[in-house]
């Protein structure tokens, strides 16, 4: 007996009374995007369940993909059987035999939403329990803590059998909590911050500051590759690449060296905020972690955050580097992040940046020049890249070589 569908249980969506349909639709979108390479798959969504109908696609390849989708509490590969006791018995034993290892215990959980079915839950439990016990050597019952829980659901249209429950990523469907802009540097932290923001349902667009010739095409490629990785979760990611060379050169001329980093950050935030404004986002996400570097002290954040009152969300603020690295590994961004190319943050680092900059002082230094036209220009000249997971687009010229 082969699984023909995967039953998906929603996470916290269940709590969101009125918005539920919207959440279910977003989740359906995420599932569809994740399974785009399985064209025969069909998705059926209802208020309390979603089914991925496999139509002969390989379920074993689909399961790992479902594990990464936010908004799924758990899921179970299942078979749909006609509501005929004998047929159900055969299916149950088949399914069970596939995962049973000698000496394991089991129980049966029956749910009967079709109340007209000839047997009640008690009778069904007995019947199927006995059937498995008779036909499986060394099998024992354990209703408290079974190794295998065979679930039988009698619904209006058919009976559904499953015996594995796989936990999903939890969280909320991406895009169900509004849109925010992620400042994506190419380092280890910012992709993790973006991932966690998506976990709570945010839809994200990424902003990267690019300073040729001080940084190379490869550092940009790195950010594109990171975006591809993040796009696996959301199905698509918009990347804004801001030309930042001119502004960095001006800062170097205009602001004393030990304050240049603070000003740089302030201007980046201003630009990000303007892009957010144009893209109708509601927040800015950064990968800052308290005390990690000079710009991430509370004093620095206070002086930098001064330029906007848009919420600046910092999902990693209380995390240690080791915790961040662990997540980066899990979401496959670490290997990309540690490629050794300069980014705009590392190249202009002053020898001794202020770790406790004063807001008033940085405002004073910046007061001699109006940065607005430069910000305008940078935003207007920002390159927009739509990134799909595993996008072949920029490799097209190479395609014939492979």
């Amino acid at each position: 007996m082969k699984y023909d569908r995967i039953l998906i249980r929603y996470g916290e969506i269940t709590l969101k009374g009125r918005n539920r349909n919207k959440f279910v639709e977003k989740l359906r979108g995420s599932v569809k995007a994740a399974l785009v390479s399985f064209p025969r798959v069909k998705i059926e969504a209802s208020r309390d369940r979603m089914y991925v109908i496999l139509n002969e696609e390989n379920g074993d390849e689909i399961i790992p993909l479902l594990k990464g989708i936010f908004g799924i509490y758990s899921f179970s590969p299942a078979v749909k059987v006609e509501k005929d006791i004998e047929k159900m018995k055969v299916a149950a034993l088949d399914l069970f035999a596939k995962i049973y290892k000698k000496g394991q215990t089991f129980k049966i959980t029956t749910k009967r939403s079709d109340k007209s079915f000839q047997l009640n839950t008690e009778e069904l439990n007995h019947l199927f329990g006995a059937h498995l016990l008779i036909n499986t050597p060394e099998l024992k019952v354990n209703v408290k803590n079974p190794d295998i829980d065979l679930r039988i659901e009698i619904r209006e249209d058919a009976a559904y059998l499953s015996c594995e429950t796989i936990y999903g990523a939890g969280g909320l469907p991406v895009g169900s909590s509004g849109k925010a802009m992620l400042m994506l540097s190419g380092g280890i932290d910012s992709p993790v911050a973006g991932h966690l923001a998506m976990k709570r349902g945010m839809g994200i667009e990424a902003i990267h500051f690019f300073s040729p010739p001080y940084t190379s095409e490869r550092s940009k490629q790195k950010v594109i590759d990171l975006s591809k990785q993040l796009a696996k979760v959301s199905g698509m990611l918009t990347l804004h690449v801001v030309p930042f060379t001119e502004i960095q050169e001006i800062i170097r001329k205009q602001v004393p060296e030990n304050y240049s980093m603070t000003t740089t950050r302030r201007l980046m935030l201003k630009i990000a905020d303007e892009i957010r404004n144009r893209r109708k986002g509601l927040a800015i996400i950064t990968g800052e972690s308290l005390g990690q570097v000079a710009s991430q002290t509370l004093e620095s954040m206070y002086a930098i955050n001064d330029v906007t009152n848009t919420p600046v969300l910092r999902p990693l603020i209380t995390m240690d580097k080791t915790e961040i690295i662990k997540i980066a590994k899990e979401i496959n961004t670490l290997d990309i992040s540690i490629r050794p190319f300069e980014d705009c943050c590392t190249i202009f680092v002053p020898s001794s940046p202020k770790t406790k900059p004063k807001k008033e002082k940085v405002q004073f230094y910046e007061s001699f020049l109006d940065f607005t036209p430069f910000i305008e220009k940078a935003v207007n000249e920002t390159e927009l890249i739509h990134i799909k997971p595993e996008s072949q687009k920029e490799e097209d010229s190479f395609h014939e070589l492979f």
Partner: protein
Amino acid sequence: MIYFDNSATTKPYAEVLDSFFKISNDFFGNPSSLHGLGSQSEKLLSQARIQMANLLNVKPGEIIFTSGGTESNNFAIKGAAFMYKKRGNHLITSSVEHPSVSKAMEQLEELGFEVTYLPVDKNGKVQVEDVERAIRKDTILISVMHVNNEVGTVQPIREVGKLLEKYPNILFHVDAVQGIGKMDLPLKDFGVDMCSISAHKFHGLKGTGALFVREGVGLTPLLSGGEQERNMRSGTENVAGAVAMAKALRMTMEKKEKGIEKMKNVQRGLIDDFGEMEGIIVHTQIESASPHIVNFSVPGIKSEVFIHALEQEHIFVSTTSACSSKKKSPSKTLLAMGVPEPIADSSIRISLSYENTEEEAAAVLNAIKRVVNKLRKVMN
């Protein structure tokens, strides 16, 4: 010309040569260079790595590009032995391995490691019970080939991998140089820690190969230098060769879907017909062998003479493995299988590719019949 010596090497696909030429000509930059030409090369290399990984169902970071099967085998075995020598001193391998495995083992013996060489049964197959019996507390590595290069016997990789689940400290290396593209080898499912492949055995180019090294396994580098390939294999990367290999593997895997049945038919036809011919002993056991090799002996006729006689008919086959055939020593595998030396001495290996046809097989059979008759008259 009929080329039936594909286990020695294969003819590169034209498309593979095109890629190699185009990259060598247009994208010759060093992937480590900072400029654009370098970064294009780097992109090509990383795309080749991704394609290899996808085809082998592993992660891109687990593919190390090498110069071929010999390097991959040496690197896996010596690299692991040096890396884990504090853990133990004992290695296990079979008695029918390719010389790049067995000689590497011998070299390690000279350095103080102990090696157990497992026997094989009459079909050339390693027994899992023997593996289990050979395991000691200080065993650090087991190396078993996937498909034997001389007879074609498929070794019980799945079973050995299963057995090793109980021994997490023992690394499992598989030399898959002959099997790749003909026999499935799900590396992750079979618990393989390292796996060697060589491009010229599947219509790629000589001098290119790869070693799969499972994430978490460390190897002491054999080549020191510029720390390419995750510090594991120094030397400027052969980008054109790596891309050519990735292409060759993709094409081979695609051809396999349709070609494998045809190849099996050709093999079966050859073995059946040899069975009917008087005085021919077939060593390849069809049930336990890869579909691309047929090994047989014509007792009384020296294999070298046989090869040259067939060559006059424009048919190319080989005596045992190409590597040892020049040394005129009888097939190590056949001797290990218990085949008497005079018979092993007259053994011939036919090895197929997806390009070979049943018509070619029929022509070869006829030629063999003629040659056997002619030579028998002369030799007797």
